[in-house]
């Protein structure tokens, strides 16, 4: 009986917190500080931030193309976005439909506070490194 109660409790617990413990056995995700940001992830995160609330699939793709002169497939883009959402750096909501999309809704993305702080972290790290290497780089120039 007790056993059953326990397993029931455990199951309900898992169900409730399933987003948190989803990748439980595989990662050692301890805090935002340690989240590793890939180059493309950083770019996407920054682009979303720069689009300021109007970030959805096509607009992100266009913006990236315009700024970086780099064509990225929609599949790769969505893989990156999905990972960012999983890491809690991006949030999303569905928006209204428009005529040119065949009446289909858009999914908008925006940066979360932890996303913002991880961007800041990256920037700080870079700035530190820039400061340290300023002389050398300028000499090369």
């Amino acid at each position, binding site marked *: 009986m007790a056993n059953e109660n326990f397993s029931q409790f455990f199951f309900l617990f898992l169900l409730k917190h399933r987003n948190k413990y989803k990748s439980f056995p595989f990662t050692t995700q301890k805090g935002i500080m340690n989240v590793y940001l890939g180059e493309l992830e950083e770019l996407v995160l920054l682009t979303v931030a720069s689009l300021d609330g109007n970030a*959805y*699939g*096509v607009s992100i*793709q266009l913006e990236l193309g315009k700024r970086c002169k780099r064509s990225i*497939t*929609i*599949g*790769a883009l*969505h*893989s990156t*976005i*999905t*990972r960012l959402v*999983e890491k809690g750096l991006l949030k999303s909501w*569905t928006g209204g*439909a*428009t005529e*040119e*999309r*065949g009446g*289909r*809704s*858009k*999914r908008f993305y925006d940066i979360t506070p932890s996303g913002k702080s991880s961007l800041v972290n990256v920037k700080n790290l870079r700035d530190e490194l820039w400061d340290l290497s300023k002389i050398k780089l300028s000499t090369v120039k």
Partner: protein
Amino acid sequence: MKVQKPPKLARRIFEWYCGQAQVDDLLGDMEESFFRNIKSKSGLVAKWIYWMQMVSLIFSYGIKKRKRDSRYSQFATNYISVGILRNYLVVSARTLYRHKYFTVVNAVGLALGMSVSLFLITMLAFINTYDNFHVHKSSIYRITTRYKSSGREFMMAMAPAALAEKLRIGFTGVDGTTRIATSFFGDVKIASGSVPIRGYYADPEFLSIFSFEIVQGNRSEALRKPNSIVITESTAKKLFGNEVALGKIFEMTDQESLTITGVLKDPPSNSHLSFESLVSYNSLPLQDGDVIRYDGPFTYKDDYVYFLTNDSEPLGKLEDYLDKLSREASRNSQAEIKFQIQALTDITPGKYLSMITAGLGPQWDIDRFYFFGTICLLILLPACFNYANISIARAIRRAKEIGLRKTMGGQRGHIFLQFITETVLVTIISLCGALVLFFLGRQEFQRTLVATSALDLSLTWTIAGLFLAFAILTGLVAGAAPSLYFARLNPIQALKTQSSKTLFSGMWMQKGLTIFQFILSFGFIVSLIVFSRQYRYSMNYDFGFQRENILDITLQKAEPGLVAAEYAKLSSVKDVSFSSDIMGLHHSAGDSWMQYENQSDSIRVNEMFVDPHYIENLGLKFLSGKNFPDLPWTHEEHVIVNEQYLKLVGIRDAREAIGKVVRVDKHDLEIIGVLKDFHFSSLRDPIKSFAFRTNPANYQYANLKVSFADVFSNINEMEKVWKKLGQIAVFRAKFMSDEIREAYEFYNVIMKIFGFLGILAISISLLGMLGMVVYTSETRTKEVGIRKVLGASVTGITLLLSKDYLKLMGWAFLIAIPLAYVIIDRMLTSAQYYSVRLNIWDILAGMVILITLGLLTISGQTVRIATTNPAETLKVD
């Protein structure tokens, strides 16, 4: 200008791939970029980009994740829990219980339909186990012979015995060979006469190659010495009771005595080799050396060669070696010979079974299974169809339930699963019914179709599992159509509408299938009528000779002269004659080439050797001439022919032929009599040319003309005389009329099979009709009530309700009657040359029976509804 649209196929593929996942926004993204691209690029390029985007998305992590999320969401619709399944079962059981009448009609129909298939399943399952008990089953092979002579190719299971020796010496990949000769036959002397025993001559390796279990004796030594015999347990029991058989000696009637060196367990019924005894091969007289040749179809009569490989050499090499031997054999003989190997597991059921002649064991022909399978389907599919038909017709009753389920979020898959569950439940109930029929019919089936010993139809766990799988499969087949129909039901309409479709309107397929069932039933009824007529016709046919009160005694080794002298003494015997065959049965006594006078051509004439009393005994009529002279036979000088022979040699007047000479086997014989045509062979064959000849050496039977007061005591008396003649063999006597009757027993078998299948087919179609009629009468109650109020008569309404079915039957008759004339008539005439023909009365009787049965089935319902008081039916809503 045409408006460019994104490629539909790409979208479809994408949607299909994503399934339940939420991908609306992604589709929107793709479409947006498509319309953006189309402004700057050509339509083709834009489409190409759309495709590429689709592909890149499919392989992206984003989709993978969304799919995974959708699978575990509470709203996932492909998620079936145990609870849901249990709910389906409970709902199904309740529905079935509430509509008991329909459930019973459906279950009985399906049970009848499934019963025949159960026989097929057990048979197939059994045949699949053939020869699987041998330990070395995968390395045992047999040599078969293919020969070409006069342009035709034949295949036989036999091979020259000398091959065994050649294989053993010339080929290292063979571990053991055994020759088998099936010709062992003898009579064992016992205290009270003799017992016949049959078996194989076999090499000592026989027992080590095959895994027949040995109970007494030494497996490797038992068949080593000449004149040793190994018998089966049942033979031992028959001869010695419970005494130990090992070491005993069989005294044989005309062979050397045999020593029992072993007792084997009886070969199981799934063995293609089946024997009472094995005799050491070296007891056979010496064969003619080791030259392999071929002199005609009977060269290797009874000889079989089996061998065991040890897998050290590839089979291809063995085939090459056999090819070499084949070439050698072809050089030595007239025909082209080719020896081939056949694996033990391919023997039964075999690929070439219909081609191989003289195979051992029962011949399970694949073709026969196809035929049987077709019959099973012909019976089963109408039953499934009826179920589907009734279920769909009753959809309106379930529409509310389905509508509600759909409104509450039930998807097509759910509804489909629910109704499939219900159908499977019905088929499992039907399986129980079918099993009852299976057990009831099992013995009869074995008796009529095959030898009992060759087929084991007992119910094992495997077979029970197969039955269950079959029931579920039947459920899927029967339930597919109604389940799909229900799954597609539009919930809004289902909840709103009350009207129903009128029966059969526009449903050409259902009409067609109902007509097909009527045709099948009609076919069975007519064949039954006609075959019973054919049976009676053959029984009462005037063969042209007198067959009553003739007792045929098989002579075996008795001396005809003594037999005649002894039996003539009995008061019940009026006359004794001798013959080489029995008339009226299939003629097998042989034929000769006869050359009439100086005609250049010889004619093949069927012949029988008789004594002078025979023609009188059988009451054959002379057209001219006289009987053989009643004198002691010294040499053959006379012959009596029939009309047909004279016709063939071109003589009109019978008197002209008397005294003419025919040349047979280099003798000249004088025609001394011409007989009116009579049926010397069975009714299957037309009367051909025939001749009576004389030669006591060929006598096989004594034909006694008897007048019995009391059959039992008289036969006993005769048996005593038989013993007095010093005969050890069992007295074998039969009335000629009985023997002829037995020859036509196969009509009884046909009628039994047709009767059984016919009853099934008819019952199924009538049950289907009953279900439909119950449904119509339920839905048309109100209409009938209004009609009655407006003055319709009971007869009028009964007719109105039956009209649909009568119309369908009418169509069925239109199609079935020409078919019956073609098929059934051909069956009759191919069964025998002298046969009845299908006539108008058979057709009419079949029609009357089918219409009567149909009306009887539906009348209960139609009359009930026609006679109910409209005041009651109109009140009910």
